[in-house]
Each structure stands twice: as C-alpha cells, then as structure tokens.
C-alpha cells in the first residue's frame, strides 16, 4: 500500500506513475541496454527469434496469472504441455486428421484442468499437492501414450500452426499476442476476472458476497489446462513431433514470469502488463546471454543476478526518483 504523503503532490504523482509502469519500465531499461551493448540484439531476425522463444511462456503465463491472482498456482503445466503434444501427435497419426488430433490434445488439457479444479475447489485439497500429483500423472501419461519417445507427425498440414509466418512474425507469436489481449480483457472487464481478484484478495469476503467461489476456481484451472494444451499443441507443431520429455520444470518459468512482473503469490493482483513484463525480461536475459556467448556456468550467475537486480530496482525506483 502506498504511503501517500501530501506535502509533495507532484512527487507522489511521478512515483505513482512509475509504480504503475512497474516492471515494464525495468524491461525498457534492459531492452535499451541490450540494444546498445549487444550486437545483433536489435536486428529484426533476433526480435522475431526472441518473440518466438518467449511465445510459449507468454501464453501459459497468462492463464497462470489467473491461478496466482486467485491465490494459488498450478504445477502441472509443463507436463500438460508435453502430454497434450504427444496426444495430438499420436491421434493425428492414427486418424490422419489434424483437427481431430488438435481437439484430442486440447481435450487432454481440459481434462487435467477439470481434475485439478475439482480436487482443489470441490474436495478442498490444496492446490500445491493437487497439481503436483497431476503433474506426475500427466507426465507419466505422456510417456505412455508416446511409448517413451518422441512421436513424429506424419501429416505436415499440422505444421502450419507452428512454422508459418504472418506479416513477418511467426504464427505462434501472433497467437501469444491474441492471448495477451484476451486475458487482459478477461481480467479487467468480465465479472469472472473481477471475481478471481476478489477470491485472491479475500476468499471469505468473496464467498460471503455470493461470488460462486467453487465454480470460479474450477473454471480457472480448466482455462489454465486448456491454455497449457494450446501451448503444447503449438510446440508440437513447431517441433514437428510430440515430445514426452519436453517442458520439464516449465511451471517455474511461468510462475517466475508472473512473480517477477510483480504479481503477488498471495493473490489479489492480476495485471496482464505485469505478466508481459515478466516474460519479456526473462526472455531478453536468456537471449542476450546467448548472443554474448557467455559461458554456460556463468550464465547461471548472470541470470540470478539480473533477476535480483530487476526486483530490487523495481522496489526502490520510486524511493530514489520520487
């Protein structure tokens, strides 16, 4: 909560503005720095590559935002990405139909989401354990469906989703942009979105005010399962195969993107701009470290250091400037 002094009105205004911009500002700083000091960073090719590299994290972080805003999180995303890709691949190969395959992949995501939502919201088991369990189960299911190895996809029509370009940008990037727009609207302009924030802010208050808490929570997890599956299907299309081993630990990437952007794990905060900032910062750091050809062991140090620097800067920028 901002402690607004009154003596210095203009000052306060600037700092409020800075505070609103939050991590986007940090990203901007990072971006400018990289543009100046990292060769090729600003090239169109690199921008397209960078945007493609963060497209999956971008998609999944949007729905992860819903989970976190409601005061929870979902650990099963990485496994769902992998399993849905495998399911899509296997079904496409079996039926020859791309559409049926995609639907099957998305269906898996919805089912896992339903299980998560039901066990968590209806049976009242905490989300951590619930999604930890389904994370294991979805991973195992993916391996079993795929028979333990990558499933190459025979029908190349499927690769349109992942490998084509539109107006100079890869299709997955467009999908991610659309996702940002949809989720931004969802959170700010629908009752569902506001209910999520209310639940995250004070679940008891939401329940007493007649917010359908259980239904909202189930819906959150279903949406998140669906989005993870979308990401998984897009990934399978990009890689031209379903990979049961992929995206291990991706839950951490998605959660980190949100939290780094400024979403509180305690719930109640849900700004899509935060997520965008978080995803962009993480992606830019990885991209630049590789462009700079930093030794992989030192990359760990740099990654950790920048993460810390970013949040500390964000925390103190209002003080020092305002």
């Amino acid at each position, binding site marked *: *909560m901002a402690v607004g002094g009154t003596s210095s009105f203009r000052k306060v205004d600037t700092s409020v503005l800075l505070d609103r911009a939050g991590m986007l500002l940090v990203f901007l700083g990072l971006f400018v720095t990289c543009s100046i000091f990292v060769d090729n960073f600003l090239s169109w090719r690199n921008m397209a590559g960078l945007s493609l590299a963060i497209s999956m994290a971008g998609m999944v972080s949007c729905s992860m935002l819903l989970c976190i805003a409601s005061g929870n999180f979902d650990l099963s995303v990485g496994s769902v990405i992998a399993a849905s890709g495998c399911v899509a691949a296997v079904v496409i190969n079996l039926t020859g139909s791309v559409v049926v395959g995609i639907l099957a992949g998305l269906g898996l995501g919805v089912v896992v989401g339903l299980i998560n939502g039901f066990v968590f919201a209806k049976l009242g088991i905490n989300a951590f354990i619930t999604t930890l369990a389904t994370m294991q189960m979805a991973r195992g299911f993916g391996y079993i469906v795929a028979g333990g190895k990558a499933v190459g996809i025979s029908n190349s029509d499927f690769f349109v989703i992942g490998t084509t370009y539109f107006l100079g940008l890869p299709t997955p990037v467009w999908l991610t942009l659309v996702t940002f727009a949809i989720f931004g609207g969802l959170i700010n302009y629908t009752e569902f979105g506001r209910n999520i924030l*209310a639940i995250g802010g004070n679940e008891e208050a939401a329940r*007493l005010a007649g917010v359908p808490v259980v239904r909202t929570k189930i819906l959150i997890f279903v949406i998140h399962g669906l989005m993870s599956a979308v990401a998984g299907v897009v990934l399978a299309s990009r890689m031209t195969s379903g990979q049961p081993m992929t995206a291990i630990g991706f839950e951490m990437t998605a959660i980190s993107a949100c939290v780094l952007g400024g979403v509180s794990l305690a719930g109640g905060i849900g700004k899509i701009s935060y997520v965008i900032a978080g995803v962009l910062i993480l992606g830019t750091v990885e991209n630049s470290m590789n462009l700079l050809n930093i030794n992989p062991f030192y990359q760990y140090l740099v990654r950790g250091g920048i993460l810390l620097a970013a949040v500390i800067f964000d925390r103190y920028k209002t003080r020092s400037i305002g």
Partner: protein
Amino acid sequence: MGSSSPYLEFVRISKSFPGVLALDDVSFGVNSGSVRALVGENGAGKSTLLKILSGVYRPSSGVLRIDGSERAFQGTSESLAAGVSVIYQELVTVPKLSVAENLFLGHLPKKRGLVDYPCLYELARAALVSLADDIDPRTPLGLLSIGQQQMMEIAKALTRGARILAFDEPTSSLSAREIERLFSVIERLRSEGRTILYVSHRMEEIFQICDSVTVFKDGRHIETFHSTKGLTQDILINRMVGRDIKNVYNYSERPYGDVSIEARDITGPGLKEPISIRVRSGEILGLFGLVGAGRTELLKLIYGATRRTGGEILLKGHPAKVETPRDAIDQGIVFCSENRKAEGIIPLGSVQENINISARRHHGYRMGFINETWERRNAKEQVRSLDVRTPSLEQRICNLSGGNQQKVILARWLSDQMSVVLFDEPTRGIDVGARSEIYALIRRLAERGVAILMVSSDLPEVLGVSDRIAVMRDGALSGIVERTDTSEQKILSMALPV
C-alpha cells in the same frame, strides 16, 4: 401481514462446535417493519445465529422460516438471493479492490457481458450518499480507516435491496455522527417494511432504534421483550448478565505524577499537521474524533508502528528511541489495536499463545526457551480475570466470539509491565458486564502510575473514563479539554468539520 405470523422465524435452532454448544434450542420470531435487538454477553451466540440466518453455518438442528416457508441455505449466495443481507461483526472486505467493486461484489453491473464501470461508479456513489459521501468509490478499499470500511460494509448490504437485514455490532467502531446517519437509514428501512435484526452491546442505542429486544445467555433464548415500553437498561443488563451493574464507569479522582510520555511535533501519514501530546503518569487521556480523523494513525506513530516523518518521543522528559513496536515495548509502551482481525490475533494460535506472545520476553523464558509453567499460569490468570469464554486454553483464538477475542488481546497487553498504554477502542465488541470490569482494570492501571492514552468513538465512554479529553478533526488536533469543564456537545463540536 398479521402480527400472529412473524416474517422471520427461528424454530428450535441448535448449533454445536467441537467442545462448544453455541446455540441451544433457540426459537423466536420477528415481524416485518420492525427492528429487533439481539443482546447478550460475549459468546452468548448472537453472531452464530446471524451466520445461520445467512447460510454461513448450517444449524445442527432446527429450522428457519421466512414468510412462512422453511429455508435451509447452503451458502450465502442462496441467502442473498432469498433477500437476506448480513453485516458481519468482523470486516470482510477485499482491500486491493476499489470501494465500488467491494460494494457490488457478487453482482457487478454488466453491459453485453462486460463490467460496466461508469454505471458501477454511479451506483456506488448513490449507495454511499446517505452513509459516507466523503468516500471516493474509486479508492482502493484498503486505504480507508476501519470506521470508513465499516460504513462501506453497511452500504454494501443495502445494495442488495434485501427484505431481511441483520447488523452485527455495526457501531462498535463508529462515532456519534456516523451512528446518526446509520440510524436514519435503519429508520427508513423499517418504514419500508423490512425486517431488521440488530446486535449491539451499547444499551442506549437499543432504546433509540429497536422496537423489541431478545436476550440470549449461554446459547439460550432467555426472553423476548416485545416492546421497549417500561424496559430499562438496568432490567436488560440484569437479564443478560444475571446481576446488576451500577456505575459502569465509576470514575474517581486520582493524583497524577510527572509527564510520562510526550509526543512532540509528530508528523506522518494520515496527519495533516504536526501533533504534540503529553500524558502524565496515572492519567487517562481520552482521544475522540470522528471516523477517519486520524486517531489510529497518531497512536501508531507514537508506538513506532508507522514510520514518523518528523517529531520525537520523550519518556519521562528524555528523548527516547521508539522506532519499532519492539523498541516501544522494551521501554514499557504497549499498543492495543482497534483492528483485532488484521492487527491483533494470530488466528491459528491458541488462546494461551495469543496471550503470552508479547510478554514472555520479559517474564517467561530463559535462554530463548519457553517457560511453560509461567505461560500456563499467566494465561489462566488472565482468562479468569477478564472472564474469557473459551473451552480451553488450547482453543484457537479464531474460534472465539468477537468479544472474547478482544478480551484475549487485552490480556496480551495486561500480561506485561508497562508505563504507557495506548488503547485504540479497547472495549470494541465487549459486553456491558465485562466492560465495567475493563474500566476498573484501566483505573487500577492508572492508580499504579501507568499513563493511558485511549482512543474511543463512544462519547459516553470517553467522558466517563478520561481525566482529560483530546479531540482530533481531519488529521489535526483540535483541542484538549479537562473532564470537569466539558460536555458531549462541546466535544462533538470540536470533532465536527468546520
């Protein structure tokens, strides 16, 4: 509607919690177009009954009848839909959302499936107009003072247009002006034919607005007075407590010592100008003001809970370092918050733990280890002296009734040795019987030479207990008056905006 068939009827309601029978075979009815007071000691079962009415709890046995038909609500969304609105004893708000969104939580206005913000703010302004027109519906709710939040909660209940409204101690953190506004709203609701339940520990209010009174004791319905004619506070108190209570405040002159604590030119958030205040040892200084006047902030600034932007604290004439609550406590200053839910209780902790958490450092432990013997003894003593109703010392504090939680928090601060006590609405939610005990306790502290600064929104209380009275208005001190040369009118006029 004939008076023979009440609009709202509780029939043989019982409710038990592990180890506690909160309601025991309670039956009574309330007519529409009337205001029914529910009174009883702390822990008598009033809040539990209201929660059964709204579907938060399901009764262990018994039924609820509304307009003649039986209802069994499975949750608040059902009761809300059936036209029942309850204002709960503890604030239940979403601090990060705006006031407007809090007001319409669960039924936001929509246009083509999307939230209609212009309409929302319009509706919110209208909802606040008769209660708290100084609140901007766009501000995040968490920035409001407790009293303002309470007014918002009341407005929230009204947005539902409910047939039945229940108020659980709505005035415990409101001051006279806000109470007046609330009463005129209740008056209007009654005249519109709604059914109103009203829980309060302030007897004078009951006579002011209620048509009839139901008395509870130990979870049982003791008696319903269908009219307040011929009823007196003394009778009511006697029925509640089982004995007579004379001279609630029992004020007597005391000798003061030197200045014990002085706050000099304090500035900080919530204050509009620097404030200086002194309390002598053995003195009780009351601090009055309207909701949002900045009293809480002043106390927190003195205590070191909020960072001061200027000014200093002097103890016995010497500048003292009071930067954190821990500094304060180590120098004998304690502070009891008005906001027991957010700033008082450790909800999952036991009664014993909640009592000892602060004082153990000065009594209980050796080399970092807890002295269980002292802790038990102290907890037992405190529970006895404040008459805390709890099944055991191990009970989680969040399972106690509101008033009993308040007593536990008071017990926490009475467990330690102190020279300065900062009380923020110390009797909030405490029943009449226990209240006179607490006044006696405060008096005894003062007699021992403790300096007491007590915020209260209850004007009779301020006048009844304090030696001097400081009044705040809109973030500034508007004056300090002696007990002997003041009156309710004078104090109110100092508190009201100019």
